[in-house]
């Protein structure tokens, strides 16, 4: 670049320093905005993964509690069957109340069914504490417990699948 051209360029900057500073400021603002929005998206994705992870943990807990319903049912320990069945129903209610956005309509239906079936098990277990149940009644509880296991396993699998999908 010749001395003359250099003088032209510096002359341009001297005359237009305000405009140049504005353009530079705009560019910096755009870059900052892009970085901030990427950071916000990343934070939202991390929050969504954490929420899904919490739902998965609640479902895992519900599955364990329902397994214990089956275990104590076989031992005819009705007070513990009542307690665990109530806890299973509560876990289903918690899932429905805390994660309405993470759950599809089908998943909510499954949790609602699980909640009602677990409640019905608790109701019969409470009755069993005061009177002897017939084999048919015990078979009905076992059937309901198996169905709750099926419903919760479906939802746990779905939640795990979505968690893994979200991490990729």
């Amino acid at each position: 670049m010749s001395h003359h051209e250099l003088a032209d360029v510096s002359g341009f900057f001297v005359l237009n320093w305000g405009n140049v500073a504005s353009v530079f400021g705009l560019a910096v603002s755009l870059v900052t905005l892009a970085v901030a929005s990427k950071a916000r998206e990343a934070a939202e994705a991390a929050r969504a993964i954490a929420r899904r992870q919490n739902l998965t943990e609640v479902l895992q807990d519900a599955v364990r509690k329902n397994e214990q319903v089956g275990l104590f049912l076989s031992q005819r320990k009705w007070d513990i069957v009542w307690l665990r069945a109530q806890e299973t129903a509560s876990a289903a209610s918690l899932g429905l109340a805390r994660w309405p956005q993470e759950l599809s309509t089908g998943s909510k239906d499954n949790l609602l069914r699980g909640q009602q079936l677990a409640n019905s098990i608790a109701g019969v277990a409470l009755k069993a504490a005061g009177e002897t149940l017939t084999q048919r009644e015990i078979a009905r509880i076992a059937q309901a417990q198996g169905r709750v296991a099926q419903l919760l396993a479906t939802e746990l699998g779905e939640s795990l699948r979505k968690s893994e999908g979200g991490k990729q």
Partner: protein
Amino acid sequence: MATEKEFKLVEQLLDKTRRRSIAWEPTAKNDEFVSTLGGRVSFLVGAWHNTESLAMKDDLDRVLLTVDSDSIPLVSELYTEARRVALKVEESLDSVLDQLGRLDV
């Protein structure tokens, strides 16, 4: 005294149950069946003390309403249909009729 909306609800549930649009299943209690709708409400239908009843609950297990066959006679029909669906009576009948049909051959 049942309201017009409650009549309509029972009517619609009965219609959808007959069309097999709604799935019912047995609970741990004798003669009680459960169904859910839209992930928001559950229905329990059962026969207690010679009266058929329907209860609607929200997702927090709060009872929103209960109606029985004394106030809405259609509840009795709903119970019968729900029971048929939950216990897969049609499928059992088909299977038995099929088996009986084969006995003549």
